[in-house]
Every structure is written in structure tokens, then in C-alpha cells.
């Protein structure tokens, strides 16, 4: 039986196991934080108008809210 030194064993294990790319799975959260800090562009004026129109429609006919909720 051949006895291996620690270095030989380490070398053989590294050769036998697949290489893991730590860079791909370790840095996701910092990337998300950077994107959060970057912020989102403000809504366009037409989007505000549309949002107000939805609120007005729901105020005119409150039962329509049920219809909306049923969809989400």
C-alpha cells in the first residue's frame, strides 16, 4: 500500500474534483444592493395620469375594485 503525504493527497483531490467558480455565486447580493442604491427612474407624467384615472374609476364605481382584486 502506498502512503500519501498531505500535499500529494491535496493535489490528487484537487485534480479529481471539479473547479467551482466562487465568483458567480458569492457576489449576487452586493450587486442587488448596488442596483437598489442606484434607484429607479421617476414615472412619466402620462403614467401619473393613468394612475389617477384608475383611482377615479374605482372611486366612481367602488365595486370595480373587486374586479381588479380578482385579477391580481
Amino acid at each position: 500500500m502506498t502512503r500519501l503525504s498531505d500535499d500529494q493527497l491535496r493535489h490528487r483531490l484537487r485534480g479529481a474534483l471539479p473547479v467551482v467558480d466562487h465568483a458567480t455565486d458569492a457576489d449576487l447580493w452586493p450587486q442587488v444592493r448596488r442596483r437598489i442604491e442606484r434607484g429607479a427612474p421617476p414615472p412619466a407624467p402620462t403614467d401619473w395620469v393613468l394612475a389617477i384615472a384608475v383611482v377615479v374609476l374605482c372611486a366612481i364605481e367602488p365595486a370595480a375594485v373587486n374586479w381588479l382584486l380578482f385579477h391580481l
Partner: protein
Amino acid sequence: MRPFLRAYLAGIALPTMVIPAVIVALALSHAGGRDANLERVVIVPVGLAPNAWGLWNMFYLRLRRSREVPIGLFGAALVLLLAPAGYWVQTALGQMVWTRDLFLIGFPAALALYYLAWKHLVARLNDLLGIG
């Protein structure tokens, strides 16, 4: 994490957060002691809508590889699929909660709401997850 899994998670996030409010609202609107068969009414918002949003966002990601697609309009188009599905489920279960008048107001409002939600919230989540 795989892009399509990210797209699914970003898609289901908003309806999943809204659903508890939907259930509470529906329960309160039927809180009169009468039997409203609430479990039948919430089938679409609980069972269908979140998965539809997730799958729709995956579809959006797939389409965007080959062409530029405005996410707001793409999200609003989902109403055109969910509305018939919701109508069919209500008809099949004998629990129709929509009326003609409600539809005339609710349908355009739903289109607008979906447009805004997809353009600003789903798009933002996509961006945060690196697929925007």
C-alpha cells in the same frame, strides 16, 4: 441563479404580496353571515394569477432576446388572457362576481393597472435581479 428562474420569481412577487389583501377584502365584502363560497371565488387570485405573472415574465425574458418589447404593454396583455380565464372559472363554479357594468369599468382599469404594475414594479424587480 438562472435567468428564467429569476424572471419567474420577479413575476410572482407582486401578486403574491397582494393576495393576502385580496383575500381579506373579499372576505370582508362577503362578511354578512351568508355563505359566499369564498374558497371558490379566490381560486383565480390565489391559484392562477401569481403563476401566470411568473410564467408571463419568463415569456417576456424569452421574447426580449430577439426583439425589443415594451414591458408595460406586454404586462397589460396578460389581462387579455386572465379575463377570459377568470370568467370561465366563475362560470364553471357558478360563482359569477362580475356584472356587465362592473366589467365596463373594471376592464380598462385592470388594463391600466397592469400596465403600470409591469412597467414600474415588475420591471424594477427584473432590474434588481439583473435581468432588466
